[in-house]
């Protein structure tokens, strides 16, 4: 078995799953890890303890996979972990036993993604059953991935 650290860091492109960034350089709409979860920053404000105190950053993020809200306050000199977030489109080939068959760029078929629940799942099924050619947008970060959108194929 390989060293777990190395294993954790070896994404498909060879980049690490996260990288550090000073709090002050984070930006709204960017990503950050809050409470161990990859989040999109929806609110970012600074405050200080006392008039002559140093800045603290208040971060509110939405978990990119579960939609859950996470918050954190930290000194603005702090280094925060930022997840490498990737968004890719795959052509939908089929749906089998609640799993999506997606075609990768290199022609391989990817079959490990579950059909999402809720409206998005229904939309995918309807479109597929209507025989529309659709692309599924898949968001991935920290070894987790999840379909987030469906759209018609261009061309």
């Amino acid at each position, binding site marked *: 078995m390989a060293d777990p650290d190395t294993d954790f860091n070896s994404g498909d492109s060879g980049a690490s799953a996260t*990288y550090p960034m000073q709090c002050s350089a984070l930006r709204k709409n960017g990503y950050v890890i809050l409470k161990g979860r990859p989040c999109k920053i929806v609110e970012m404000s600074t405050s*200080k303890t006392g008039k*002559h105190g140093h800045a603290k950053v208040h971060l509110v993020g939405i978990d990119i996979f579960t939609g859950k809200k996470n918050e954190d306050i930290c000194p603005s000199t702090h280094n925060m972990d930022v997840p490498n977030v990737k968004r890719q489109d795959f052509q939908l080939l089929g749906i089998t036993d609640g799993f999506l068959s997606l075609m990768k760029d290199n022609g391989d078929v990817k079959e490990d993604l579950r059909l999402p629940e809720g409206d998005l799942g229904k939309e995918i099924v309807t479109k597929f059953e209507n025989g529309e050619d659709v692309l599924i947008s898949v968001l991935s970060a920290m070894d987790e991935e999840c379909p987030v959108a469906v759209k018609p194929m261009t061309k």
Partner: protein
Amino acid sequence: MMAAVGAPEVISQLESAAKVLMAPPSMVSTEQRQHAEHIFLSFRKSKSPFAVCKHILETSKVDYVLFQAATAIMEAVVREWILLEKSSIESLRTFLLTYVLQRPNLQKYVREQILLAVAVIVKRGSLDKSIDCKGIFHEVSQLISSGNPTVQTLACSILTALLSEFSSSSKTSNIGLSMEFHGSCKRLFQEDALRQIFMLTMEVLQEFSRRENLSAQMSSVFQRYLALANQSTHNVTLKPTESWREALLDTRVMDLFFTVHRKIREDSDMAQDSLQCLAQLASMHGPIFPDESARVSYLAHLVEGLLSMINGIEMEDSEAVGISNIISNLITNFPRSILTALPNELFSSFINCLTMLTCSFGRSAALEEVLDKDDMVYMEAYDKLLESWLTLLQDDEHFPRGCFVQPAVQVFNSYIQCHLAAPDGTRNLDRVTRLHGQLQRHQQQLLASPGPESVDRKVLDDLYEDIHWLILVTGYLLADDPQSETPLIPSEVMEYSINHSTEVDINTTLQILGSPGEKASSIPGCNRTDSVIRLLSAVLRTSEVESRATRASLTELLSPQMGKDIVWFLKRWAKTYLLVDEKLYSQISMPLSMAFGADTEGAQWIVGYLLEKVINNLSVWSSEPELANDTVELLVTLVERRERANIVIQCENWWNLAKQFASRSPPLNLLSSSVQRTLMKALVLGGFAHMDSDTKQQYWTEVLQPLQQRFLNVINQENFQQICQEEEVKREIIATLEALCGIAEATQIDNVAVLFNFLMDFLSNCIGLMEVYRNTPETVNLIIEVFVEVAHKQICYLGEFPSLCNQYYKLITFICEIFPEKIPQLPEELFKSLMFSLELGMTSMSSEVSQLCLEALTPLAEQCAKTQETDTPLFIATRHFLKLVFDMLVLQKHNTEMTVVAGEALYTLVCLHQVEYSELVESLLSSQRDAVIYQRLADAFNKLTASSTPPSMDRKQKVAFLKSLEEFVANVGGLLCVK
């Protein structure tokens, strides 16, 4: 239908409905509640409900039903006014008044509603003079003289109801009458009835002031009276007409209010009302005064009363704001000539009292701040008084010479003292040395016992607070903050420096200036130096202590607030003093000109010092957004004027900064994006300083080219499509886009062509980027932001560069055509700017640009039609564009090519906003006076849409419309374009 039912049935129906409405939410269903509401609504709308209502009032025991009956009477009286016999209205009014009089224990809200009905009757009656106000005043005055407190309170309630009904403000009842009606009622009322009410109020007050206990009801009567006494509702000062002379100039009136205040001042609510009354009296002006002397004696009486009131009492917290209002009104509304005409002794007592009050409020305000109180009454009062001082001092030449010097010094000193820590009032202002010492002590302490908890910050924080205020005061003293004018050294400062220049040793002054590392007092001859320069050098010394502390790794112990104050001061100072332009002044101080003038060593040294400070701050304080922001702003100040920039670019540090920023490595890449943008802006501005062409070439090679190079390297990689989502790539792209925004921000009239050309290359590439990153909204937004920023900063100049302008609009149109769905998702500000660019391009640029913008409209309108959301900003924007395009096609001359493009846009917009389109046509038609033209136009419009009714986004219909449009334009073109 209500009338058909017998009164007892109505009552029981209403009473059970009231029960439902009053029940707790859990007990009744929504339907039951709605039904009950409906019963009351239709009851109030029923025809001639007077008999039923009277019956209800006399028999029902349910308060809410009584309330509704009163409301029904009020509404019905107004509704059926012209049908009713005047005598029956009169008897209705008498009935209501008697009813209230006989029932002293009515619920307050029922009583008020009944009296409101009375007031509405009086008001409606006053308009056709059918009801005489005098009758009711006679009754009220009888009530007042009855000697019975309950009855007197009722009289107050009646007056209050009348006042609030007539005041034509938001308090006016909603009884379906026009604003005009309310306005004319108010005017009639003011001319006549108001003074009677005032006299009655005074009677009540006289009556009550003889008593011990006063009711709140009464105090609200005079509050309302004063609100009404104002001629205009917007004006808060008292400007009564001549007819009030007798009533208001009577000294007993003012005395009465002072007496009343003394009696009730311990009740904070009532005290506020009575002080408000006094403040109104203090604001009195206008034709009421027959002449100057009447005004002087009025003011004298007021000031005497005020002084004896203030001196005779221990002030309550709740009085502070009210009293400061009286003083502020008095100073603002009485002209200088009246103030100076006061007897000397009285005037100086007044000024002394004002000084004393100001200092005391200041101290209490500081205390409030320390205690962190929610309600900062003293702060508000203190601000009011300081403003009054400003008003006084602004034209101090009207006053006896020097009469304000002592008080002003006192006020100033107390201001400083309030903000400096104990030991209070110390004259030793060398707190920087103490800070230095304290920091050193902490350093040793830290070395002895590491760990941040071991340091007591109290002493430090006190010092920081003192220095904070000292820097602020110094900054405001030395320089103004002009918004767009050229900043000038304040003439007082200049004069002061000139007057003392004979005693000043220039060399020592320069030595102190150049030695921020040393204590000023350690330099021999330090008291023979220029004070203005010494103030700067004191701040530089503070700055130096700060910088050294950061080098000694004591940043943790420093105050970011103080750091911010320092750069704030330096920026303000540099704008005014650095490279002082002698041409702008009639006389100039030698020391200032020798220290900071053009071509002086002093100026060069300071530029170098400030630059070093900026660089140090950006690396040490990257985590303090505000401080970093103020720091880059200081940098912008250094380069935004050519003369200063010329010195800056000779500094090696500047080039290092440029290179370091271009390399995107720490610490500069840790800065927040807004700071990075401003830094880019500064670097670009610096590039327009004077340098020989080789140097310039080299500079741009180091600043702008790396940006382009890195960008092209990334996007031209063969596998860019595959790696575009990788974090490093995304960061590179985002940094580039941020930098582009910064470059756009650096636009000035003389560099717009160069910068636009440079940006244009990027902008064309950005379109492709949008395609690549269409999945990543944050990147797409940033790209559009670049476009908008370019538009915002450069478009006002672009008219001078037609070809650039065309290119820009081509890109904008392209974005709208390719990504219409992104546009509604833009942040509000961005969206507005983009729409504004489109409108500007359509209306104020060349016809080619105008065409491009019209082309952009069609996909945007189609996007709206697709989503079918009618409340989005884009939908609203398209409505505005409909009118623009309509006017353009119908009212303006244009070429045929334009007709086609505009026609397409118009058609889609019409589909989207059919109602608005019909309205446009209607209003155009209705403005035609000539019947022949009217007919021709009407026919033409009918024909225009005949083939496409109702309009829909169908290609065939659209083509038909365009064809009819050609004919339309030919038919009516000349008709309307004549104007």
